[in-house]
């Protein structure tokens, strides 16, 4: 029986527009784009030229800091554009899809016969290594590190997140192969929800996490199972990215097809779509977005995601595309005292505590002025890690590197502060601050 860990702190936000459990393929995009920014902490060096023909699995760019870490094309076709922004920063590398999908053949391999080095070499060659995120710093992993563990969370409990059971259906074999491959690199820890079909996964230490969001955050799971100490490195990878790895060994190809949720109150028919990494957001949500008002499209879930638009490409790690109302020209009178029955709040100065079952339509407004941190205990109540979140954030704001380290910044990623950012009555941009703190620390330590 797997170890059951109960998470008491947290908050489930019940949003309208959860994806119905029906999966269909999204229409193919004409052009696919791989966005380097999705792989945070990496400096892209583009290795293709406009006009080059590539197959799915051919490198588009590599990490300048570790050129062996490749980032590969999800489709076969012609490189049409290396999109650059200010100071020639690479924004995306775009590939026009060929009529027929063709894959680079990496050769089927039996994971049992491979050793760690061979697995690592295969992942580097196929571009799947780039999906590892390391902690500390929450950046792309360094292949020269020896991680003390690889953590996979098979729980998605952010609001509107794609249900792992739906996503993983029929992919169990590839998932198991992927986990077995990872186990050659380091000890694998798998976090699952109660009664998960993945609980029987072999070659991994399986822990069951019971509790509210963000219990599904891999950072929370690491903190409860094997907290990171200074000098240690762990790698994390998404559940479906483990499937990519499984496919690589079982089929010999890089197939970056994902099942994502298309959800949110402004999606007409919330559902699951099979999409390829780098597909156009517009193709994924085509005809499925309400047009009667200004809508905010989000690459990811509404707590940790990033605002996007129909012309953008879905980011490599994204497991959902969500749409919420922007509502930037509403005039809500006397918000500080009006009952505002349609608003969701953890505060009982509102009435959402009376309606725990109600699904809310939350818009993109910040709903308050930015303040210094006034009320205490807000972050604490939704931050299920043995870390003082407020003190850590203050240390980051102060730029105090020693104190950040002492308070456990190694263990966190911006997403771990997402729920705290939601409930914060002082409207502090916690995820941005934590991101800056991690980047600051990384620069300092290199």
């Amino acid at each position, binding site marked *: 029986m797997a170890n059951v860990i109960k998470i008491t702190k947290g908050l489930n936000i019940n949003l309208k527009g959860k994806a119905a459990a029906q999966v269909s393929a999204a229409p193919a995009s004409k052009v696919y784009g791989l966005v380097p920014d999705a792989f945070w902490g990496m400096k892209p060096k583009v290795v293709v030229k406009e006009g080059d023909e590539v197959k799915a699995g051919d490198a588009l760019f590599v990490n300048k800091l570790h050129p062996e870490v490749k980032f590969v094309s999800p489709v076969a076709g012609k490189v049409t554009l290396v999109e650059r922004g200010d100071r020639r920063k690479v924004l995306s590398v775009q590939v026009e899809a060929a009529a027929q999908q063709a894959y680079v053949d990496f050769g089927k391999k039996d994971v049992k016969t491979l050793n760690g080095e061979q697995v690592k070499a295969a992942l580097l060659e196929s571009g799947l290594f780039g999906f590892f995120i390391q902690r500390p710093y929450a950046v792309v992993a360094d292949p020269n590190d020896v991680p003390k563990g690889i953590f996979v969370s098979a729980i998605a409990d952010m609001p509107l997140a794609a249900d792992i059971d739906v996503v993983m259906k029929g992919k169990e074999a590839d998932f198991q192969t992927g986990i077995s491959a990872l186990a050659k690199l380091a000890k694998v820890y798998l976090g699952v929800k109660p009664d998960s079909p993945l609980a029987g996964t072999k070659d991994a230490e399986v822990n069951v996490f019971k509790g509210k969001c963000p219990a599904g955050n891999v950072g929370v799971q690491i903190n409860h199972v094997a*907290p990171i100490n200074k000098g240690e490195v762990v790698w994390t990878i998404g559940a479906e990215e483990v499937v990519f790895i499984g496919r690589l060994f079982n089929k010999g190809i890089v197939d970056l097809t994902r099942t994502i949720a298309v959800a949110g109150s402004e999606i007409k028919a919330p559902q699951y779509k099979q999409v390829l990494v780098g597909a156009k957001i517009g193709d994924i949500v085509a005809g499925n977005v309400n047009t009667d008002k200004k809508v905010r499209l989000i690459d990811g879930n509404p707590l940790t995601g990033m605002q996007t638009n129909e012309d953008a490409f879905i980011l490599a790690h994204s497991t959902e595309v969500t749409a919420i109302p922007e509502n930037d020209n509403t005039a809500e*009178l006397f*918000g500080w005292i009006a009952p505002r029955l349609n608003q969701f709040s953890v505060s009982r100065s509102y009435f959402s505590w009376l309606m725990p079952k109600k699904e809310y339509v939350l818009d993109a407004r910040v709903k308050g002025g930015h303040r210094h941190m*006034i009320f205490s205990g807000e972050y604490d109540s939704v931050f299920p890690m043995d870390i*003082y979140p407020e003190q850590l954030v203050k240390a980051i704001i102060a730029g105090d590197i020693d104190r950040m380290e002492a308070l456990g910044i190694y263990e966190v990623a911006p997403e771990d502060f*997402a729920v705290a*950012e939601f409930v914060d009555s002082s409207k502090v*941009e916690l995820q941005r601050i934590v991101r800056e703190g991690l980047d600051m620390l990384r620069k300092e330590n290199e």
Partner: protein
Amino acid sequence: MGLKKFLDNLKPTFSEGGKLSAFGSLFDAAETFFFVPNETAKVRGAQIHDAIDSKRSIFFVVIALIPAILFGMYNIGYQHALATGELTPDSCPCADIWGNFLYGLAVMLPKIVVSYAVGLGIEIAVAQWKKEEVHEGFFVTGILIPLIVPVNCPLWILAIATAFAVIFAKEVFGGTGMNIFNPALVTRAFLFFAYPSMMSGDKVWVNGNYIDCINGTPAVDAVSAATPLGQLAAGEPVTATPMDTIIGIIPGSIGETSVIAILIGAVILIWTNIASWKIMLSTFVGGALMAYFLRYDGAQNFEWWEQLTVGGFCFGAVFMATDPVTSPRTEGGKWIFGFLIGAMAIIIRVLNPGYPEGMMLAILLMNVFAPLIDYCFVQSNINKRAKRAAK
């Protein structure tokens, strides 16, 4: 919506470069008072937010204060009526509630106006100077100040004390959220040490003035009435019964007398989770324990638990000690903080011959220690982490 349009039309005038840009903060304060800000989330970071903001939380503290404010007004009139002989201690306090209340309202209103005008004036000026939004923290401070002074405190002294507190206890530290001391208590401490004759003794607690339109009773000169704590300090027997002190029909600072009114506020604050129940509870526990240990030192007919019902103990525990900015930020720290406030308040009351009331000093003292208490808790977390790494 008409008002929205009106404000939108005015906005350019008050914005940077507009004719009235010197009053931009005032305009902004008015705009956010009427309407929830329309700012939407940035490209990265949480795209949705909880509807709670600091404005609502802070106004709910004011709402929680309403019972104490209303009762305070009534009690001003009631004490006046007692002093003028219109009512006797034997007559029912329920007689002429309306008249007493109106009398109190007339006495109280100028204090509230002065406190808000002075404090908000300074806050708006500072916000304009720093090009920041006006923070709403003073809405609570501004109503707390008139509630914790004796009824006879002159308005000009109140204005000076408020200005002192807002500038030196709050703005020099960086405004709402950055102050070390509770600004309302600094106001009181300033009055206490700068104008002691206005803050204690027997002459300050009852308003003797004659207000023609409300109350027909003639003015009386310098009414003498002792608070239970004053009597205790003087070694005299306490005349108020426990029932009097719990209902609150005793002389005292305006908002602090009624235990019932304050507890209604406490329920609102705890229910909405705006103030920490841990601090409230531990303050009462600390006070009760200390009062029990020191029970033979006070007046003979005064039970130890009555200590908690008199003076500013309840008001301080519910509305002052729980100020989130000046209390510990760690949950464990809140227990210790409250306990020490309660204990310290009773120690000062009972053992210090100079000060009949100890709540204000106890809270201000523990405000200083709040960061230290936090330090201990945070440091233990740091040490635990360091130890884990060393293994």
